[in-house]
C-alpha cells in the first residue's frame, strides 16, 4: 500500500512538471518556427516580426534593415536555446532523471528571463507600454513556473485518481447531452449565418441621401465590397460623397457590430 501511494505521489508531481516543461518547450518551438517562416503563409499566419521590429527601429531613426535583422537573429538565438534546454529537461524527466531535468530547466528559465527582460528594455525605448505589460507578465509567469516546478512535490500529493463509478457515469452522460445541445446550436447557427461573411447587406434610409448599413459580426471585407457594388447598382444616379464609420464610443457597447453611413448626392 505504501509503495502504491509513493508511486502515485511521484507520478502526480512528474506529470505536473511534465506539463510545465511541455508548455515552455512548445512555446519557444513555435516562436522559433514563427521567425523561420517569416510572414503570413498558407496554414500559418503568425506575426510578421520583421515588420514589427523594423517599424520599432525606424521610429527611433534606425532605418537600416540590417539592425532589424541582427536584433531578430539575437532574439531568435535566445529563443532557440531556451527551446533546446526545455526540451532537454523534458527528455531527462521522461527518462526519470530528475536531477538533470532540473539543471536543464533552470538554464531554460534563465534564457527565458533574459529574453523577456530584453524585450522589456525595448518596450521602454520604443514607448510601447502595452507590450511592456505583456512582457512583464510573461517574465513573472517564467519565475512562477520555476517556483511551481521546484515546489510541486510539496503541494501535489494526490494519492488516488479513481473516481466513483456512479459519478463517472453521471458526468459522462452530462458531457454527452450538453455537447449534443451545443453542437446542434453551433451547426444551426453556421447554416443560418455563414452567408453573412460575404453577402452584401441592405441599407436603411435615415434621411435624404443618408443611408445606414449595419454589418453583422461575421462580415468581412468582401461583404463590405459587395454592399458597395449592390448600392451602386441599385442607385445608378447617385454618387457616394462620403462613408462615415460609426466610432466605438457611439455604438451600443458590444451589441453593435460595424455600422457605416453613406452620404450620397445626385450625379450631375
Amino acid at each position, binding site marked *: 500500500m505504501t509503495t502504491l501511494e509513493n508511486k502515485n505521489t511521484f507520478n502526480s508531481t512528474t506529470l505536473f512538471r511534465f506539463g510545465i516543461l511541455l508548455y515552455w518547450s512548445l512555446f519557444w518551438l513555435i516562436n522559433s518556427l514563427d521567425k523561420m517562416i517569416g510572414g503570413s503563409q498558407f496554414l500559418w499566419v503568425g506575426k510578421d516580426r520583421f515588420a514589427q521590429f523594423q517599424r520599432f527601429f525606424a521610429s527611433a531613426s534606425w532605418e537600416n*534593415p540590417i539592425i532589424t535583422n541582427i536584433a531578430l537573429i539575437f532574439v531568435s538565438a535566445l529563443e*532557440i536555446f531556451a527551446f533546446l534546454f526545455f526540451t532537454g529537461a523534458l527528455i531527462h524527466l521522461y527518462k526519470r532523471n530528475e536531477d538533470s531535468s532540473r539543471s536543464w530547466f533552470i538554464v531554460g528559465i534563465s534564457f527565458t528571463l533574459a529574453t523577456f*527582460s530584453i524585450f522589456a528594455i525595448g518596450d521602454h*525605448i*520604443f514607448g510601447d*507600454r502595452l507590450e511592456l505589460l505583456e512582457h512583464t507578465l510573461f*517574465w513573472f509567469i517564467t519565475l512562477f513556473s520555476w517556483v511551481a516546478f521546484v515546489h510541486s512535490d510539496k503541494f501535489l500529493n494526490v494519492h488516488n485518481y479513481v473516481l466513483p463509478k456512479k459519478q463517472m457515469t453521471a458526468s459522462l452522460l452530462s458531457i454527452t447531452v450538453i455537447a449534443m445541445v451545443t453542437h446542434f446550436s453551433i451547426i444551426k447557427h453556421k447554416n443560418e449565418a455563414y452567408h453573412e461573411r460575404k453577402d452584401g447587406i441592405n441599407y436603411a434610409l435615415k434621411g435624404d441621401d443618408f443611408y445606414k448599413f449595419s*454589418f453583422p459580426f461575421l462580415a468581412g471585407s468582401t461583404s463590405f465590397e459587395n454592399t458597395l457594388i449592390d448600392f451602386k447598382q441599385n442607385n445608378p444616379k447617385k454618387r457616394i460623397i462620403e462613408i462615415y464609420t460609426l466610432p466605438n464610443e457611439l455604438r451600443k457597447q458590444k451589441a453593435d457590430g460595424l455600422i457605416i453611413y453613406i452620404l450620397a448626392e445626385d450625379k450631375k
Partner: protein
Amino acid sequence: MKERKIIQFSIILYWTTFWGLSVLDKIIPAVQKNWVGKDFFALFVKFFESLGIKDPLYATIALGLISTIEILNFVCYLFAIINFSRGNTSLTEKWFYNGILSSVVLFILFSIGDQVFGDRFQLLEHGVFWMILIASWALFKFASDPENRSVNLKFSKSIKLVLLSGIILTVLTSISIFKFSNETFSNALTPVQGKEIADGIYKFDFPFLADRIVLENTISSFKKENPQLKLTYIYTGPNELNSKKKTHILLYLFTE
C-alpha cells in the same frame, strides 16, 4: 552557481532596469533620435485638463512627484544589485525590500489617479504591475529553494549536442530572416497596387511594413497611372472588416 542566486539576480536586475529606463524616459522628453519613449507630460496635461485643471503647473508638479518616487525606486534596486554582487545578502534584502515598498506605493498612487481620471485600462495595467511587484518580493524571499541547489551542468555530450543544434538552428533562422527581409523590405516604400472592386472603386491591401510614406507613394502613383480619373474620396476599411491578424490595413479610393 546556486539556482536561488540566478532567480534573485534576475528579479533585481529586471526591476533595476525597469525603473532606470522609466527615469530615463522622464529625463528624455518626447520623441528623440534613438529614443521614442512615452510623452508623460502630454499624458498628464490631458488627464488634468479632463478634470478642469488647465494650468500646466499641476501636471508638472505631479510628474515631478512621480519621477522622484521612480528615482527612489531605481536607487533602491541599484543598491540592492550592488550589494548582491558583493555577496552581502542582508543589505541586498533590505534595499530590495525598500525598493518593492516604494514601487508598490507608486503603483497605488497610479491606481488612485486612474480611478480619478476614469482610465480603467491603465487601472488594470497598474493593478497587474502592483501584483507582480508583491509576487516578486514573495518569490525573492519566501519561494527560494530550501535545498540551495547548484546548477549541475557539465560540458557533456548532450550539452555539446544542444550547442551544435542551437548554432545550426540559429544559422537557418538567420538565413530565413535575411531572405524574408530582402524580399519584403521594399514594402516600406513601394506603392501598393490597387484592384478595381466596383465601377470607380479601388481596393488597396497594405502590407504590415507600410506606413504613411507608402500611402503617399500609392496615391501619387495611382494618380500618375490613371490621369483620366478624378479622386473623390479615400476610405480606410475599419478593423472589423479585416481578417484577424492577417490584414494590416485596407484602403478604398473612390474615383470618377
